């Protein structure tokens, strides 16, 4: 299961998608919007995707996890658009007969996704906004 959605992520259908009598362990990762970043108060976030390529790259990460570990299933759902503090921006669920593989694969998925899948976030503060991009620093400072 791979999805890019513009509504709040519902986790129940994702968990059902990976659940199975073959599974003894389900590890999930939920990326949530923090109220602070880079020493500043965050008021909200905006996630933008290059959807056609993001879908392909998410599927690649999923396939690679299934190839590397003895898993039952992997589901990845990424939300885009505006998100408030505490909202879930990405949810990953990995099921496996045993827990070691589930932990390792879930971590592989989020670590890989963060560098290969074209989805960017813009942090909004009281006094400005910044795109958070690779090698960002000054270059992505769009205001103030």
């Amino acid at each position: 299961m791979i999805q890019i959605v513009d509504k709040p992520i519902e986790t129940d259908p994702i968990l059902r998608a990976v659940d199975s009598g073959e599974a003894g362990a389900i590890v999930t990762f939920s990326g949530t919007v923090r109220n602070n970043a880079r020493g500043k108060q965050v008021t909200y976030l905006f996630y933008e995707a290059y959807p056609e390529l993001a879908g392909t790259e998410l599927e690649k990460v999923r396939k690679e996890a299934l190839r590397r570990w003895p898993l039952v299933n992997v589901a990845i759902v990424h939300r885009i658009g505006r998100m408030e503090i505490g909202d879930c921006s990405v949810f990953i669920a990995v099921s496996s007969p045993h827990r070691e593989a589930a932990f390792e694969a879930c971590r592989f998925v989020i670590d890989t996704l963060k560098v290969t899948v074209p989805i960017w976030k813009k942090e909004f503060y009281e006094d400005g906004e910044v795109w958070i991009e690779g090698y960002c620093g000054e270059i992505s400072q769009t205001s103030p």
Partner: protein
Amino acid sequence: MYNGTVKVKVRFFASLKDAVGTGEMDVNIAEDNATARTVFDRLQEQFPALKRYEPIVLVAVNHEYARWETPLTPDAEVVFFPPVSGGLR
């Protein structure tokens, strides 16, 4: 390679979209053997704010990661975007 004028659709994401001021445009390249690099060079002339992205920008052609040298066929879709953040672990 393709000889003659090609019209390609160009898209931008994240801070590149802000730098250009639009997410999408059509570009006519009246040049033989046009590549993704040709398009970006032409755009830099028109939008100087793009210049600082030149060392880091990523390119996709027809929704696959591509290289500067990737040749363009008519009606290709060329997309320029910044690297993904990685995020703090």
